[in-house]
């Protein structure tokens, strides 16, 4: 297997399991190809760092008062005039 065939499998394997034959071929290539191992490492590192950054637990600051008032006004207006075919009301 060449790198040009292995890299798409590296990517595909990040989002869905590969079938057994392809996984076997990829594993064999990764044993002998440092470049493709590095590609896999970088993709996994990027994915994990992105997930962790997105899910960090820093508390969100409260919404500004003007934003709260605006959102509440929009909700009241929407509640007063539900669209035809919208969700059923209570």
């Amino acid at each position, binding site marked *: 297997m060449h790198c040009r065939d292995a890299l798409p499998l590296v990517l595909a394997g990040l*989002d869905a399991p590969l079938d057994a034959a392809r996984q076997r071929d990829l594993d064999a290539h990764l044993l002998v190809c440092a470049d493709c191992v590095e*590609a896999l490492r970088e993709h996994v590192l990027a994915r994990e*760092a992105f997930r962790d950054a997105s899910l*960090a637990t820093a508390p969100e600051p409260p919404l500004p008062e003007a934003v709260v008032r605006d959102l509440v006004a929009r909700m009241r207006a929407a*509640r007063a005039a539900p669209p035809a075919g919208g969700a059923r009301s209570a």
Partner: protein
Amino acid sequence: MSTPDESRVAPPSGPAHGVPTSPPAGDPRDADGLVARLQRGDDAAFETLVRMHGPRMLAVARRYLPQDADAQDALQDAFVNVARAIGGFEGASRLETWLHRIVVNAALMKLRARSRRPEVSVDEEALARIERSRGPSGWSSTADEALSRRELEEIVRDEVARLPDDYRAVLVLRDVEGLGVDEIAALLDVGAAAAKMRLQHARRMLRAALGARLTPSEAP
């Protein structure tokens, strides 16, 4: 405008987020009957809901829409949808989960509405060149040796924010929301093959961007 069903995007349940994966009998934040008050059209309940859940929902919208004005628009759409749909909320999911789905849908609707342009073209040759050029001295070792985890996370988040909208969205849906390719395809109203392709392009673009930013210069 789509209203949320109770079966799609749930808040990510990674350890950092702390949302239980199995639905509890009742939402602990609803101790004062917030849902019932919202369903009765209690004005004060709308304000409580906005104050309690708005900041978190805005943060979720920002994952998809890094520009603050866009995220605010999605938040507005989300709360309007909440007001319209709260009557049908039956508690099959937690209120927080339901709100999460609503804001994700609102953000995706906004992305969809403004991406009338054709699919971003990927410079296959440039990406392939980058992929061929990265060796064992690629950026993963830089990330390990020269950056704290927090610094790497900041850089990655920054580069994801710079990706084209469609690519950023699939990465959030896959890597943060934890959805499968088929679920992503359904949410984006594209075929599974297109969703898979978009994910692969997004990953390649992100890796290339990180390579450009983190690979040490080889100039003498």
